[in-house]
Structures are given as structure tokens and as C-alpha cells.
């Protein structure tokens, strides 16, 4: 176990020190986005890999976390890091509440429930919009958006990238901790057979809700990070179709390891930006993603991450 945490630690340390130094201003922003959505994708992976549950509403939960963070940033004087933590916890409660009807389902019907939730949140975000410094509960003024407070000690985009990498790494650590402790073992048994898990004395309901809460936490933290990164949020960023896309990329990247979530974040934000920079239409990215999803489902269930580690292991040491 101690061995397995070394590669991710090295990876995050390298990113933390190296990336802000070598990247130009544009790529600092892009990589920040990619790191944030890697976090959201990790939430999808928890449900998919540990319990076989399909969640198409993760982007909607990112929006919920972002909404809470914006509301608190405008409405209170709390430090931004605390706001992001509150956004994560509140979103995890909402994620767990959404899980209640899902407890009796899995497979296709659960996917459909999350799709309906994603559709409903899309309408909610559009109807009520994201806070922009206005009065009242919804905090929306029909005017230009007010300024947001950045986190303490973060003055630049590069500083915010470091801040994002640290929080992302901490959250990945939290997921890893779950995998090797009681929840991870419980999830593994539930995935095998709910009846057996129950017979073994595992509280199936509790651990299922726990998984949804963890996934929601990651989405909420991602939303909080995103709101401060962009300075404001737009309802059009949280469409149901984006939830479908992020799920597809989490599967393509590989749901069974942290590398997969990183790949998903990179594919979701970095690849389109690269194509855009080369002047290639972003539509091409969609075609690639679609083909990659089909490929992953048909022949590579562990995704790109699985194929990478497979290739590494086959190499004689």
C-alpha cells in the first residue's frame, strides 16, 4: 500500500512545482480547468468502478457546488477555502439525497434517473441563474457581475493553479483512503452481491449513500474551485449533455484508478483547447471521444489508464 501512493505523490509534486513554471498564461488557465474536472470525474469513477453505478448528473452537481460557493462568496466574509469546503459538504448532502430513490435501482434505470436529474438541474440553473452579487436568496442582479474574492495568498493564475492542484491531490487522497478501508471493502462486496453483503453484516443502504455522498463531495469541491477560477459561472456550462460527455470521458480515461480521472480531465478541457489553439474544429474532439467510448466499452473496460498500466507491467523491469 505504501508503495502505491508513491507514483501519485511524485506526479502531483511535479505538477505543483513544474506546471506553473513552464506553462504560459493561457495553459495555466486550461490546466486549472482540467484539474478541476479531473476531480469531478473522480466522483463519477467512485460510483462506476466501486459500485457499477452510472451517474450522468455529475456536471449538475458541479453546478450546485459552484452555486453554493458563489452565493457564500458574495454573501459572507468567510475565507474562500472554507467556502469551497462548505460547498463540497453541502453538495455531498444533496448528492446523497438524490441517491435515496436510486437505492432500489441500478443499471439502466439509475442512469435514467440521473439523466432526468441532469435535465431538471439544467432548467433550474437557467431559470434562476448563478449569483452575480445581487440581493436576495438567489443573488442575481440584472447587471454586470460583481468581483469575487480569491483565496488567501493566491494572487495570480499560476498561484490558483497550485492551489487547485493541492486541493485536487488531497481529494484524490481521500478517495484512495476510502478504497483501502472499510467503505472500499463494503463497496466491493455490494458490487459482487447485495444479498451476500447484507448477510455479511454490511449496512448496504449506508454504504451506498456514502458512495453518493463522496461523489457529491468531489463534485461540490470542483464547483467551488471552478467558480473562483472563472470569477462567475454560466448556466450554459452545466447542460445535461456535458454530464453525458464527462461520464463518457471518465469511462474512456479509466474508472479504476486515479490516472483515469486525470486523463478524463485532460480530455475534457485540455484536448479541446489544444485543438482550438491549432485552429482545428472542436467537433473533431467529439468524434474522437465517441469512438474512444465505444472502444473502451467493447474492448478496454479499464480505459486508457488500464491500457497504460498494462503496457507498463508487461515491460520487463
Amino acid at each position: 500500500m505504501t508503495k502505491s501512493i508513491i507514483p501519485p505523490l511524485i506526479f502531483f509534486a511535479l505538477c505543483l512545482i513544474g506546471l506553473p513554471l513552464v506553462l504560459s498564461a493561457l495553459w495555466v488557465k486550461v490546466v486549472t480547468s482540467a484539474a478541476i474536472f479531473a476531480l469531478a470525474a473522480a466522483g463519477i469513477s467512485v460510483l462506476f468502478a466501486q459500485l457499477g453505478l452510472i451517474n450522468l448528473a455529475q456536471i449538475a452537481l458541479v453546478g450546485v457546488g459552484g452555486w453554493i460557493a458563489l452565493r457564500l462568496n458574495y454573501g459572507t466574509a468567510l475565507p474562500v477555502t472554507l467556502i469551497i469546503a462548505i460547498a463540497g459538504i453541502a453538495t455531498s448532502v444533496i448528492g446523497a439525497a438524490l441517491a435515496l430513490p436510486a437505492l432500489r435501482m441500478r443499471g439502466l434505470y439509475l442512469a435514467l434517473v440521473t439523466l432526468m436529474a441532469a435535465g431538471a438541474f439544467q432548467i433550474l440553473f437557467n431559470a434562476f441563474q448563478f449569483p452575480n452579487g445581487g440581493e436576495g436568496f438567489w443573488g442575481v442582479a440584472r447587471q454586470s457581475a460583481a468581483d469575487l474574492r480569491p483565496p488567501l495568498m493566491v494572487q495570480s493564475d499560476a498561484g490558483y493553479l497550485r492551489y487547485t492542484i493541492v486541493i485536487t491531490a488531497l481529494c484524490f487522497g481521500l478517495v484512495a483512503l476510502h478504497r483501502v478501508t472499510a467503505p472500499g471493502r463494503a463497496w466491493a462486496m455490494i458490487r459482487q452481491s447485495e444479498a451476500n453483503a447484507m448477510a455479511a453484516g454490511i449496512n448496504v443502504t449506508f454504504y451506498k449513500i456514502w458512495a453518493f455522498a463522496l461523489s457529491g463531495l468531489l463534485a461540490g469541491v470542483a464547483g467551488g474551485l471552478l467558480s473562483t477560477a472563472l470569477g462567475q459561472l454560466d448556466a450554459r456550462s452545466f447542460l445535461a449533455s456535458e454530464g453525458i460527455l464527462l461520464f463518457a470521458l471518465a469511462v474512456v480515461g479509466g474508472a479504476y484508478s486515479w490516472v483515469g480521472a486525470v486523463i478524463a480531465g485532460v480530455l475534457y478541457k485540455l484536448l479541446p483547447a489544444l485543438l482550438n489553439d491549432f485552429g482545428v474544429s472542436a467537433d473533431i474532439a467529439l468524434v474522437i471521444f465517441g469512438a474512444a467510448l465505444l472502444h473502451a466499452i467493447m474492448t478496454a473496460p479499464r480505459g486508457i489508464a488500464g491500457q497504460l498500466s498494462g503496457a507498463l507491467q508487461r515491460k520487463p523491469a
Partner: protein
Amino acid sequence: MKLQFTLATGAAALCLALTGTNATANGHAASCGLNTGEAATGAPIKVGGINGNAPPGDFSGGTDAAAAYFACVNANGGINGRPIDYLVENDQWNPELAGQVATKLVKDEGVVALVGNGSVVSMAVNAGLYKDEDVMVMASGCAISECYESSNIVSTNQGPLPSGIGALTYAVEELGTTNAACIGFNIPNNGGWACDWMEDFMSSQGLSGTSILMDPTAVDLNSVYLQAIAEGADTILLMLPAGPAIGLLKVAEEQGGRDLFTWVSPTPLYEPGVAEVLGDYWNDNLYIHIELAPFDSDGADNQNWVKVMDAYGQPDDRRDTFSQSGYISAKFFVEALLELDAESIDRATVSAAIRGITDAESDLLCAPYYVGDADRHMPNHAGRMVSYTGGAFEVVRDCFDIESSYLDPIRAQEAALGIGQ
């Protein structure tokens, strides 16, 4: 391979027809910058531009026209010998991408200014960046409050607020409007902002107005139209980009709604390709407020715009109001830069030169253009009214200004600068 599209070809054909007569009539080449006829060869000056081109709207006309004008300037002596290197990015209506491309232009490329910008999301995301980096933006196709309420953004087009109120002014005075419904996107700094001020205008006139704010991704325009019926309004103001506005007009046509309401719209519906999509049903029943001169105006700047686009534009460039606006923004920008010593051009001198623009005249605009050093800018708030008559648009009222308390700070600036006195 890209296929050809009716709208682009239609627009191009229309412009060809327009220029065909004019080009043969006076036969002069386009006039740009120093007009030396010799290509500029000095160190390039980097200038940026951001447009938004993705559903639900194409706002690329401004940067297309600015690119054409800069190409023409570069072929005619440049900025005292230095060519303009014009870098255009598309934000695809995506706030994240908008932040990224602006950072790239302003920080990585170090552009001296941005010209011809046309987007709904980019200005909202980047107003703070422009201010922090003190880079000026001479926008051309703006539709949100940030474009008119920021120290570093000045837009040549009016945006929905003045143009919408202008359309309503005409409707109230000439068409007997007493109760207007403003249909706009439910985006706080776009539809919400413009429709709010429209309601304010109606109540200041002792009349009533309501807002119907729709989801920009709404599928069913029919129910938006029915909502307008349920409101009991006598006039519909289409505070929307051209695409959704046309969709709504189609729904109304299907329901036979032409005579149920008075139909008015701000500038976006004034587009060369619109006749092809709308057909004859709306003839003489649709009134549009236009922010700049009509496309077929004989004015020198309008004619030169056509020539520049013919000679230096791309065949698929849109030739809409944003295009005119991009041309005139680029022209004022170049005129301001030509005042500077070519060697001293950097962001600080360019920002100061842009702020120094006052009383710049053009036949494309109803009133002089100016920038000045202020916390908000809206130099263009007077326009004309046209009536849709199928194949063509007919001017039914020449230049008129609007009455709105929104303009109070703007009028104070104008008084201080001695403009329009």
C-alpha cells in the same frame, strides 16, 4: 470539406450586386490608413480580437471586417510603416474558453489593444482582466451590460438596450403601442438587463411593459409566444439574436399572429440574409431599429466598407451590422494610432491614444464617436428605424436619440467632453 450555405452565399451575392453598381460607378479602390499603396514592412504591432461564433448566434462580423480593414491598412503603408498583426480568437459562447483566449491574447501575446470584439460571454468574463492589465477594447458586436459599464471597453454598436428602447420609442410614437412584451434570453446581463430598462422606459412614459425571459436553449418557442399572448401585450419587442428571433417569427406566422401584435426588434434582425428565411409574410409588419447606416447607404464610409470587404474580406464573411461596426472601430483605431510615433507604440501609449478619441465622425454613425477617460462608455445611442418590406428594408425614420435614465452618466460625460453641443 465544408459545404456551401445559402446564407453566406446569399449575403455575398447581395453584396456583389450592391458593389457591382457602385464599383463601376466610381471605380475607386478602397481607402485605408495612409493610402500609400505600398505594403508595410516594419515590426508588426499585435492587436487582438475575440468573437463568439457557435449556436445560438454568430458574432464574427466585427472581427471579420476589422481583419479586412487591417489587411487593407497593411497594404497601404500600415501604421507609419509598421503592419498590424491581427490575432482573432473564437470563444464559442463558452465562458471558460473566453477567459482562456483573452488571457492568451492579453498576457501571452501582449496585444496593444483588442478591436472588433463581438461576443455575449467574453466581455463578462474578461472585463476585470482588461482593467487589471489596462488594455483597451474597441468592441463591435456587444450585447451585455459589461460592454457599456466598464472602464476599458468601448463598443461601437449599441447593444440591445438603446436599440430596443429606440424600437419601442418608434412603436409608441408611430404605431400606438401602450403595452409591450420584451422577449429576451434569461441571462442577467443580457436579456434581463435590457428588458428591465425597457420596462423602466415604458413606465416613464406612463405605459406598461412586461418581460418574458426564455431559456437560451429552449426548444419550444411556441410556448414563449403563447406566454406573450397570455400577457395581453399589444406589442412584441424581440430582444434576441437573429436565429431565435426568426424562430419566434416563424411560430407567430404559423399561428397567424402578424396582426395580433405590433412587431418591433433591435438591430440583430437587420441582416442581409433575413429576407430569404422570413419570406413575404412579414412585409410592412416588422419594424427594426438599426444602430448604424443602412447597408445600401451612399455615405463615404459605408461605400468604403463595401470596397474593403470586397477587396480584403473573405467570401464567407458576414456583412451585417457587426461588420459595419467592426470596420468603423478598426478605422477609428487606426486613425488614433497614426497620431502616435510608430516607435513609441506599446500598450500604454495605445490605451492613452484610444482614450483620447473625441468627436470622430462617420456617416455610419448618427452622432460623433468618442472614448474619453471614464468608468463606462456608450458613444452610440442614436439610430434609425427601418421597415421590413420583403427583399429590402425601407428607412421609415432617420436618426433619433432615445430617452432613458440609463444614459444620464453618458450624457454627463458628453457634456464634459463638449460632444453634441
